[in-house]
């Protein structure tokens, strides 16, 4: 079923497609529908740079801005929204297929429909987002296509397909199409383009373990932990600011977790009344070069800072935990267990007894001296 690109963008918060009107090199807005008849300025060596900035979000509230506010010609100054690194996009040049029958690939608003209709063709250009969630590549603005057995230069049409294997834990990103050129020439060069595909995270991961009494196996509240990934400390953020202590394992509400090397930034996790320690977060991602989230199958360390009152802090403070295994139990040995095996001594008895006897004896004698 064909679906309007715009509708899709509005309906599916997760799949952000960018369908843009074809803009010819001279700045005249020309509908792709007239493509065949038009005589575009063709420059076989012209290139236009496209930068993909891959955003991720966990729910709509985190991401109030829809696509519409994104400006394709300016680089976003938003540095707080989560970005995903290591996401691969395969970019296919589908110009031939498009120009074979331009009408077919447009909806009634004249937008190019990418999904399913424009097939992968040729060797794709792979774009892989870096640590900042960005990937940049240059593309030919015009492509030589054969129309009615005649080779002509036509504005290029590209389809961007996200590799779902690189975005596990997120909704699948719909394919999107982009036709070049966009915008006019500045000093004989096409402007750089910025595209902001977004992914909604579908799955969350949790780190969870339990603090117990080593003898009774009862859950213990009040044990204090840091959670570490390697030598990085977990810092829970709420509205972007650090949460100093987390004293309740909350499996319902995913939190934003940042991994920092600064120990003073670390959040202190306190075992709750059921003995549980941990948190739920989205999949590992990078924001501004800082690691966030929890990696699937990731290996972490629970570092015991303090034991519950009346229990010994174990000699071995670190316990390995994993995202996968939530059954780890960390025991504490109760302390102060040696019995109180002492009394006040018999001194009191001896002193009191002797005093009474002496008193009695003196009185006894005293009574019998005068006559």
């Amino acid at each position: 079923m064909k679906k309007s690109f715009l509708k899709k963008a509005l309906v599916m918060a997760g799949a952000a497609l960018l369908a843009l009107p074809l803009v010819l090199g001279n700045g005249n807005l020309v509908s792709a529908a007239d493509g065949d008849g038009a005589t575009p300025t063709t420059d076989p060596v012209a290139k236009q740079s496209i930068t993909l900035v891959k955003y991720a979000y966990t729910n709509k509230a985190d991401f109030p801005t829809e696509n519409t506010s994104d400006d394709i010609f300016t680089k976003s100054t938003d540095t707080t929204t989560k970005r995903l690194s290591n996401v691969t996009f395969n970019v296919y040049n589908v110009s031939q297929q498009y120009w074979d029958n331009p009408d077919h690939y447009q909806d009634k608003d004249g937008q190019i429909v990418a999904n399913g209709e424009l097939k992968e063709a040729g060797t794709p250009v792979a774009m892989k987002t870096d640590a900042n969630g960005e990937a940049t590549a240059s593309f030919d603005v015009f492509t030589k296509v054969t129309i009615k057995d005649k080779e002509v230069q036509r504005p290029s049409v590209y389809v961007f397909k996200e590799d779902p294997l690189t975005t596990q834990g997120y909704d699948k990103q719909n394919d999107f199409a982009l036709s070049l050129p966009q915008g006019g020439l500045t000093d004989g060069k096409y402007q750089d383009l910025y595209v902001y595909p977004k992914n909604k995270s579908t799955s969350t991961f949790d780190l969870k373990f339990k603090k117990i009494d080593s003898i009774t196996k009862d859950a213990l509240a009040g044990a204090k932990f840091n959670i570490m990934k390697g030598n990085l400390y977990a810092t829970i953020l709420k509205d972007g600011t650090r949460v100093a202590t987390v004293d309740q394992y909350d499996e319902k509400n995913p939190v934003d977790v940042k991994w920092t090397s600064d120990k003073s930034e670390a959040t202190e996790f306190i075992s709750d009344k059921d003995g549980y320690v941990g948190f739920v977060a989205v999949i590992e991602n990078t924001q501004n070069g800082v690691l966030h989230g929890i990696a699937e199958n990731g290996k972490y360390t629970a570092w015991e800072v303090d034991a519950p009152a009346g229990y010994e802090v174990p000699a071995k403070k670190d316990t390995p935990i994993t995202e996968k295994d939530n059954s780890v139990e960390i025991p504490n040995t109760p302390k102060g267990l040696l019995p109180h095996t002492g009394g006040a001594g018999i001194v009191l008895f001896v002193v009191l007894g002797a005093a009474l006897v002496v008193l009695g004896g003196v009185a006894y004698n005293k009574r019998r001296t005068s006559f």
Partner: protein
Amino acid sequence: MAKQKKALGLIDIIIMLLIIAGIGVLAYPFVSDAYVSYKNQQVIDGYQQRETHKNQAALKKEYQSYQAKNQAMATANMAPGVSGFNAAVNAQGTAQTSEKRNQKKLASQTIAQLTIPKIGLSLPVFNHTTDWLLQFGACLLDGTSYPTGGKSTHAVISGHRGVPNAELFTRLPELKQGDKFFIRIGNKKLAYQVFSRRVIEPTEVSSLKIKPGQDLVTLMTCTPYMINSQRLLITGRRVPYHAADAEASKWAELWNKLKFYVWLVAIAALLLLMGRLLRGLIIGRTRYLLVVPSGASRAVVRRGRHQRTFTPDDEGRIEHKLPGGRYWVTVETATGTVRYRASIKHLKDRQFTLKRK
């Protein structure tokens, strides 16, 4: 006729009570200890008899069950002194349990006998530690090995020190390096020689853990005396049991039985003393006639710092009524001075008996 005086006045009664109470308080720790020791010895005898009557198979089975538990403990690296321990022993530990001694219950919980001849100690070892049990004997600290001996065992036996009702581990600090103590469990007799004495904080349970491969028994009590803020650990290593050890143990056991009889005799003596005191008080309240032998020109009567001089009456006699008791009477006659000791021979006497000195 003058009103008949009561045999004892209020002050006499108070004096009597003071002395009785004083002696009672003074003797209580010792008599109570003797009683506890005596009853404990009965528990031990009962235990020994029970164990001897068991056949070899039963004994072996019991011993093996202890050993199995020990092995499990060694593998689990169990923390000593736990398992509902805190509930059974209050923090101040002054044995404030109202429950009375119950020989049957004690006997059923006895798993061994601890003998320390050096301090004349012979106590039953109970299978776990509670405030109630601690009043009567030594208790195996929960979470430590049964004192079966054998590699990788470490039994910790705790006992009270400085409680008024029994001596128990009060003299434990007298044990020095090289001294021995003995444990009898089932039909086995084990000897341990002290090699380590340490004072630890009550929280340092880790020092009571099993040491792999070693056969240890630690005796534990509170220290310092009367303050009890720390724990004294006296640890012995297993050594061979000799015939001389059996002999020494026997004496310790005997002493624990004898103590009670010694105190029975002492109590009898005390009662006798009380009787004497009572008699003295009654005599002191009664007036008796002092009759100085005739021919005296003067008699000086002295008791303590007080003295009175009597001269003959018109008939040449010196006769005076004095409170009962002992007096020195110096009688001056024409021929010289004679000293007498005046005292009351019998309560019913009318007059003093004079004895020439």
